[in-house]
């Protein structure tokens, strides 16, 4: 027992007792669900191009908007979390996962009130995405602009 509870080797000692993730099965699930969400996006995009005045370049915005609405609704009724348990990254990586993180964080803290609960915690999880996106885009943008100016 003394050896098992040894702090320095703890990570190594508990390894045989941890469940090993089923890599292949998880990947197939993520592939199918993620692919399906993108398929839905493609269908929506074609719908907006055909029936509204969107071009191929601008149709991305309403498509993402629609997917975000769907994801917020599904999170609200508790379905998206079940999809997430099944699909792992398949529901995390598409833009629906971003909307899910916003809605679920807000719902979780609803009991604390509208201002301090919902509004304050809206970006609890999604904040990291926006911060890193803006920081990396700003740094890369400055570098690229600098190089372009150097080359004339």
């Amino acid at each position, binding site marked *: 027992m003394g050896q098992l509870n040894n702090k320095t080797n703890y990570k190594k000692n508990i390894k045989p007792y941890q469940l090993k993730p089923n890599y292949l099965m998880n990947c197939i699930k993520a592939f199918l669900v993620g692919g399906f969400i993108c398929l839905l996006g493609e269908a929506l995009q074609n719908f907006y191009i055909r029936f509204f005045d969107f071009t191929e370049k601008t149709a991305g915005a309403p498509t993402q908007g629609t997917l975000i609405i769907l994801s917020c609704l599904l999170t609200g009724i508790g379905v998206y979390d079940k999809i997430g348990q099944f699909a792992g990254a*398949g529901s995390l990586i598409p833009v629906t996962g971003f909307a899910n993180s916003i809605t679920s964080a807000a719902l979780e803290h609803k009991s604390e009130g509208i201002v301090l609960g919902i509004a304050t915690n809206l970006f609890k999880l999604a904040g990291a995405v926006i911060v890193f996106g803006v920081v990396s885009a700003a740094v890369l943008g400055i570098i690229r602009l600098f190089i372009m100016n150097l080359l004339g």
Partner: protein
Amino acid sequence: MEYLIAFVIGGLICVVGQLLLDVCKLTPAHVVVTFVVIGALLDSFGIYDQLIKFSGAGATVPITSFGHALLHGAMAEGKEHGYIGIAMGIFKLTSAGITSAILFGFIAALIFKPRG
């Protein structure tokens, strides 16, 4: 055919995320942040634009397109107004996505009851 391409490319991007989760033992937040930064990196040399042209929603729906769109909008304004343009244009293309996420996330949180 375009639906099949969107399905396969979108699915493959998610498989990369799943491998990062399972093999590298990253948390979901770390995986998503990594994807956003990768998307911004791939905007250079127009790589991500090529991918969007090839696979449509297979490339615009995953979160990598968020990083791509941030940098893309920033560069478009940056070419016109110089360095200050980067700050002006960074949210230009992603505005619709962020606005709808905030708006509908807020409304959904108001309407629905938390569970679990």
